[in-house]
């Protein structure tokens, strides 16, 4: 084992040595510097491994061969080894990244760099408070020097402000040290603690000055204007060092010094951290400047770390794991993002479309963002989960709200940024230049995130319950992304089939789960078949499609709430990327993400509240919640964001309509059922039939009814075929919500029938319309017309789809309607029910508009030669049609077992549906799908034959051969009655379709952004103001404490 003192020796020695090399020797200097940065990496890592594995103990080094107080002592323990390793790895990679810039500046810049890394190492290791001060000063000066690397006015100004601000902070630190020595008689931290000097009156003032200056070093909100200017002005490579390096050292110093102070410091730290996390992320939401935005995020993350430290006693044994996962996510992701920012060289996040020039860079960018926001499987997901659960265990819900709100704001601006990167404008002339030395560091950090994720997973108490194999499969799909799409498609379908076959035995006794698993997996396979029509590589599609489906299946497989939430987040992430792939999807995908994030955090909070007072995390604990009102409501609203209940629906139309042709059915017919399944889980946990009179359900019933009405009404007034279908989904999910809220046997049967039907017909319709859109290249129905001749198969598919949608017998839609009537009357929700039936008749309007405007009426000249939709689109459509036919003729095959499950499992024992062969009956009425189909089929056939006989001499005529007062119509465009088809209806009921929800969210959004913008005026850019804020901050904390 190499003594850690050599870290200092090597770095400092080389820094001096470099001075001897002439300017012409920058190349050699560069190599020497790299080597001397690599050695400390080896030293610190080997210490870390040895101590971790128990082969070595922490050592204390006394310099100058003497003991404190006459020497400086350094400690290399597990924590020190970890943090120095992090710093040294960052130092090495950061140097590789910066080497080109540093070389330009000459060897002195390299020396400065070495001094910085050396300083950070000592700051971590030292146990001597004065020594700490000295090395913090060294770090400050080195950082300031590196800020000047950029050599423009902005960075000079920022560097100066930095020096002044940190100078003032050091001043307080120094005063603190004075008091420290005066009261403690030692400069050694351990000595001070050992002497129990804390209790000495007056020592508290020493501690106050010391700790407050460390806190200020961590750039707490709002005393951090100087830091933001630095992040913005410095070259990104340096910002990476500041964000991940100095912040790391400072946070460790804080951790190290905390034992000096009393308990109250922990509380102060919690408050400071919370204010910083929330405030900084809040101000970030309207930020467009890349590096400044990263600055806000950095400061926010450090705030979160402060909170974690502040909650140390409450977090108990989980502290280490939480700290590790939050820290490592921030450390790796933030450095990585700053580095990428240096590659992209765009000041505004709106110009980041250029990142698409490189797959690797885009991939890394994505995972860094996901890691920061805390999506699974990245470490911060585990960390945040554990932290929230621990806090929930002690009832600290306000703090949880702060954490989630801050995370939400952070997600908001990060995903806006991601949106610009994936979909933003990109000029073709500009090419992204990626030298290897710039991409290697972020690449290594990106890979490290996965390794860290693995460790976070194994450290987390819930981690071992997560099935990581599908995640590995997703990663594998990234690796083989260079292959043609059809190969990847086949692999994906194969994997899904394999998964389905393996899954079935484990859930076969739970029909409810089987139904949803079938929707997710069979639906997934069918929609993937359509993907065969895509030529080329279809980069980045498959991993996320699999992620979404795996997330959905994970919901079904989840045994506890952790797994459930894990799957929920995966599903959200996968579907977001799928949605944003559409040509004009940027805005809509962003809206989707906002609502999904908001919804996910509500679910998270709901889970946390349910877990209060319960020891396990079984799904059933929702029902045992000690705060049932809160838990139920939060969870319900969370799930409703996914099912797009009215008011929370505004993301859906755009997201579904603008998605790619084969993605729309995935996110509409299938994904929405994820939310439905969530509601099912919630309602079952609430206690099935016993909960039927719960006031929440009553309001959800009304909400469902209003959603059904609103969705259908809005669909009627659409001109865009896919938007029409999207609004129709809103309405259908309204039906499902309404029926679920009944909490009766028949109500649930009708909800499940609706779910199955909606899956069948909406996937069918979206595929069919998607196929048409592929051919005609427009979504506007009035531009189409008469396509039945060119696309007869698509027409049949749409016809079957709308008959099912409208609930016309003999197809299965009617089963849903019939069950519905029975459920409404048994439950006694007459008026809500009437609203829903009214909505049902409105559905006819858009069903007709859809099929008529697209396939019937007058064909347009420019579409005379279009071909039928691709065969790969038609195959899944006809499989779905077969599905509809079977479900229509023999609904008992599905409904009987579900009914049996609902009855026997004591969820809904009473008022069940009884079956006699194929005839279903309730207390009220009866219905026999099979016989109805038979009667109608025979009759239809007889009449058809008769008509064919009677009109056997019919001639076909040309397009314009119609009864038109002896004249010919002018053009197909003026003869095709389609645009604004229901203007009269709009005149009568249009007022009901006023976009109130959109207006509400726009205003909310506007106000939030304005407040954030307004608050940013605090950061005037004036150094004096910054100092005043720092002073005020100290005074306020002082007043709070004493």
């Amino acid at each position, binding site marked *: 084992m190499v003594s850690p003192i050599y870290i200092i020796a090597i770095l400092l020695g080389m820094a001096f040595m470099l001075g001897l090399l002439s300017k012409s020797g920058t190349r050699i200097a560069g190599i020497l510097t790299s080597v001397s940065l690599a050695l400390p990496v080896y030293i610190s890592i080997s210490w870390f491994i040895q101590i971790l594995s128990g082969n070595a103990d922490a050592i204390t080094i006394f310099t100058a061969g003497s003991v404190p107080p006459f020497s400086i002592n350094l400690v290399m323990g597990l924590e020190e080894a970890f943090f120095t390793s992090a710093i040294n790895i960052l130092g090495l990679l950061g140097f590789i990244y910066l080497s080109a810039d540093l070389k330009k500046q000459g060897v002195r810049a390299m020396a400065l760099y070495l001094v910085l890394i050396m300083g950070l190492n000592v700051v971590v290791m030292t146990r001597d408070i004065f020594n700490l001060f000295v090395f913090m000063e060294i770090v400050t000066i080195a950082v300031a020097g590196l800020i000047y690397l950029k050599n423009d006015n902005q960075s000079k100004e920022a560097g100066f402000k930095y020096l002044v601000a940190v100078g003032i902070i050091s001043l307080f630190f120094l005063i603190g040290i004075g008091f420290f020595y005066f009261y403690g008689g030692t400069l050694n931290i351990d000595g001070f603690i050992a002497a129990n000097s804390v209790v000495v009156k007056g020592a508290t003032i020493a501690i106050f000055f010391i700790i407050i200056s460390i806190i200020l070093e961590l750039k707490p909100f709002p005393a951090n204007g100087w830091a933001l200017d630095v992040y913005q002005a410095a070259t990104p490579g340096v910002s990476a060092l500041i964000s991940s390096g100095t912040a790391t050292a400072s946070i460790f110093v804080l951790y190290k010094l905390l034992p000096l102070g009393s308990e109250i410091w922990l509380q102060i730290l919690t408050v400071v951290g919370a204010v910083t996390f929330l405030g900084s992320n809040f101000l970030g939401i309207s930020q467009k400047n890349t590096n400044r935005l990263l600055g806000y995020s950095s400061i926010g993350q450090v705030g979160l770390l402060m909170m974690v430290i502040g909650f140390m006693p409450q977090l108990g044994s989980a502290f280490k794991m939480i700290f590790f996962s939050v820290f490592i996510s921030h450390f790796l992701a933030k450095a990585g993002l700053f580095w990428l920012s240096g590659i992209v060289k765009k000041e505004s996040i709106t110009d980041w479309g250029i990142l698409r020039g490189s797959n690797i860079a885009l991939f890394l960018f994505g995972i860094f963002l996901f890691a920061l926001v805390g999506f699974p499987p990245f470490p911060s997901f585990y960390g945040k989960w554990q932290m929230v659960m621990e806090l929930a265990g002690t009832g600290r819900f306000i703090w949880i709200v702060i954490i989630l709100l801050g995370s939400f704001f952070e997600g908001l601006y990060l995903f806006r940024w991601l949106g610009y990167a994936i979909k933003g404008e990109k000029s073709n002339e500009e090419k992204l230049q990626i030298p290897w030395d710039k991409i290697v560091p972020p690449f290594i950090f990106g890979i490290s995130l996965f390794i860290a994720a693995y460790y976070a997973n194994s450290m987390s108490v819930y981690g071992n319950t997560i099935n990581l194999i599908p995640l590995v499969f997703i990663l594998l799909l990234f690796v083989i992304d260079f292959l043609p799409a059809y190969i990847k498609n086949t692999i994906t379908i194969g994997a899904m089939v394999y998964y389905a076959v393996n899954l079935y035995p484990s859930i076969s006794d739970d029909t409810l789960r089987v139904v949803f698993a079938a929707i997710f997996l069979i639906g997934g396979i069918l929609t993937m078949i359509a993907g065969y029509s895509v030529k080329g590589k279809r980069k980045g599609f498959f991993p996320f499609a699999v992620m979404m489906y795996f997330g959905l299946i994970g919901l079904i497989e989840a045994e506890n709430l952790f797994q459930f939430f894990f799957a929920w987040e995966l599903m959200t992430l996968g579907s977001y990327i799928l949605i944003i792939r559409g040509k004009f999807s940027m805005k809509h995908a962003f809206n989707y993400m906002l609502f999904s994030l908001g919804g996910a955090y509500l679910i998270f909070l709901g889970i946390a509240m349910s877990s209060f007072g319960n020891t396990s995390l079984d799904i059933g604990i929702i029902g045992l919640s000690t705060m049932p009102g809160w838990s139920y409501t939060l969870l319900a609203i969370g799930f409703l964001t996914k099912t797009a209940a009215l008011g929370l629906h505004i993301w859906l139309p755009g997201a579904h309509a603008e998605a790619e042709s084969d993605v729309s059915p995935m996110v509409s017919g299938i994904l929405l059922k994820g939310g439905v399944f969530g509601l099912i889980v919630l309602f079952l946990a609430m206690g099935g039939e016993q909960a039927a009179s719960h006031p929440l359900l009553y309001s959800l019933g009304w909400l469902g009814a209003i959603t059904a009405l609103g969705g259908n009404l809005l669909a009627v007034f659409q001109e865009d075929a896919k938007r029409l279908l999207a609004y129709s989904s809103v309405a259908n999910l309204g039906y499902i919500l309404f029926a679920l809220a009944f909490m009766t046997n028949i109500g649930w049967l009708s909800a499940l029938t609706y779910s199955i039907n909606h899956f069948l017909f909406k996937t069918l319709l979206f595929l069919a319309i998607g196929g048409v859109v592929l051919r005609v290249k427009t979504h506007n129905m009035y531009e189409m017309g008469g396509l039945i001749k060119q696309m*007869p198969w698509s027409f049949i598919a749409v016809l079957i789809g709308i008959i099912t949608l409208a609930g016309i*017998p003999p197809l299965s839609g009617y089963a849903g309607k019939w069950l519905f009537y029975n459920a409404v009357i048994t439950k006694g929700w007459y008026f809500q029910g009437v609203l829903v039936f009214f909505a049902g*008749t409105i559905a006819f309007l858009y069903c007709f508009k859809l099929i008529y405007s697209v396939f*019937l009426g*007058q064909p347009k000249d420019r579409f005379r030669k279009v071909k039928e939709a691709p065969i790969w689109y038609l195959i899944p459509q006809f499989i779905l049609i077969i599905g509809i036919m079977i479900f229509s003729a023999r609904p008992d095959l599905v409904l009987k077992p579900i009914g049996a499950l609902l009855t026997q499992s004591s969820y809904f024992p009473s008022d069940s549906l009884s079956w006699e062969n194929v005839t279903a009956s309730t207390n*009220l009425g009866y219905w026999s799908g099979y016989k109805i189909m038979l*009667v109608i089929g025979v009759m*239809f056939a007889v009449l058809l034959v008769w008509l064919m006989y009677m009109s056997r001499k019919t001639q076909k005529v040309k397009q314009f051969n119609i009864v038109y007062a002896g004249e010919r119509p002018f053009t197909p465009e003026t003869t095709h009655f389609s645009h604004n088809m229901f203007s009269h209806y709009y005149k009568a009921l249009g007022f009901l379709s006023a976009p109130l929800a959109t207006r509400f969210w726009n205003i909310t959004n506007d106000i939030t952004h304005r407040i954030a913008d307004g608050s940013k005026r605090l950061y005037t850019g004036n150094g004096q103001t910054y100092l005043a804020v720092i002073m005020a901050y100290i005074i306020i904390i002082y007043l709070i404490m004493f």
Partner: protein
Amino acid sequence: MELVKKIGFVLLGLFIILNWGLIMSGIIRKIIARLGMRRGIKVFQPYINLIKNYSIRSQISHGVMFYLGPVFRLSGGIGIFLFMPLIHGSELWSNFSFTGDLILIAYFAFFGMLGMALGAGEGGHPYSAIGISRGLAQFTAIELPLTLAIISIAIQYNTLSISEIVAAQQGGIQNWTLVTNPFATVAAMISFLGAMGHSPFSVVMAPQEIPIGPPTEYHGTFLGILQTNRAILHVIEAVLYMNLFFGGATNWGILILKSFLVYFWSVFVGMVFPRFRVDQSIPWLLKLPVLIGIIAIALLII
């Protein structure tokens, strides 16, 4: 054997209903003419029209769906007939009502409407599409009072089976829904006006402005089928209301009388009131008739 007998009676019933429908429409048109101080057509004119239309040799088609439209339409009409019990207490005259209940009939009505809409749509005539869009729009509002009435009587009789509803009304006029649940009856009868397409809800066909709307392009056999359907549908819809609100029928004589009176109600109103535009009829239907329907339910649940 049972099945053959059943089918025999079903076909016989259909034959009776069709003929009664044709005669009834003749009578009604005669009455309308006389009210308008005209001599009017012969009572058997509908038969003549039908025979003429079925005999026309030259026919044109605009495509498959155009062809299928009338088949859908007639299937819709006959389908409702098939699922409707005609004579109370008679197993043989109950058709196939054992396969489904009131809800089936309520929803099967859409089958014909949809098919017709599509067929007419392929005809390519803008007036057809205008007529359909008006029809569908107005229809949403027409259904609402009926839905309220259906729910009201389902609560009242605790069943959705038409046979049972009829059975519950036996034993004199005091047991009819008309008397026991007048609000539901009123709401439904207003809805009936809309369903029959006479003034004030005749904007769908509106012969004076969009030459008969949806069927504009149909002629010959196609039109014949549509006329056949109309004859059946008018009677069977009247039978439905008769079953639900006016005690049903225990023999064919009563069925003919009651269905005539029910149907005549729509003619009577149509003669007195002028036509609504769609954007007038919808708000009108959604106000008073819906309120009456709500009262019908509210009275039962209080």
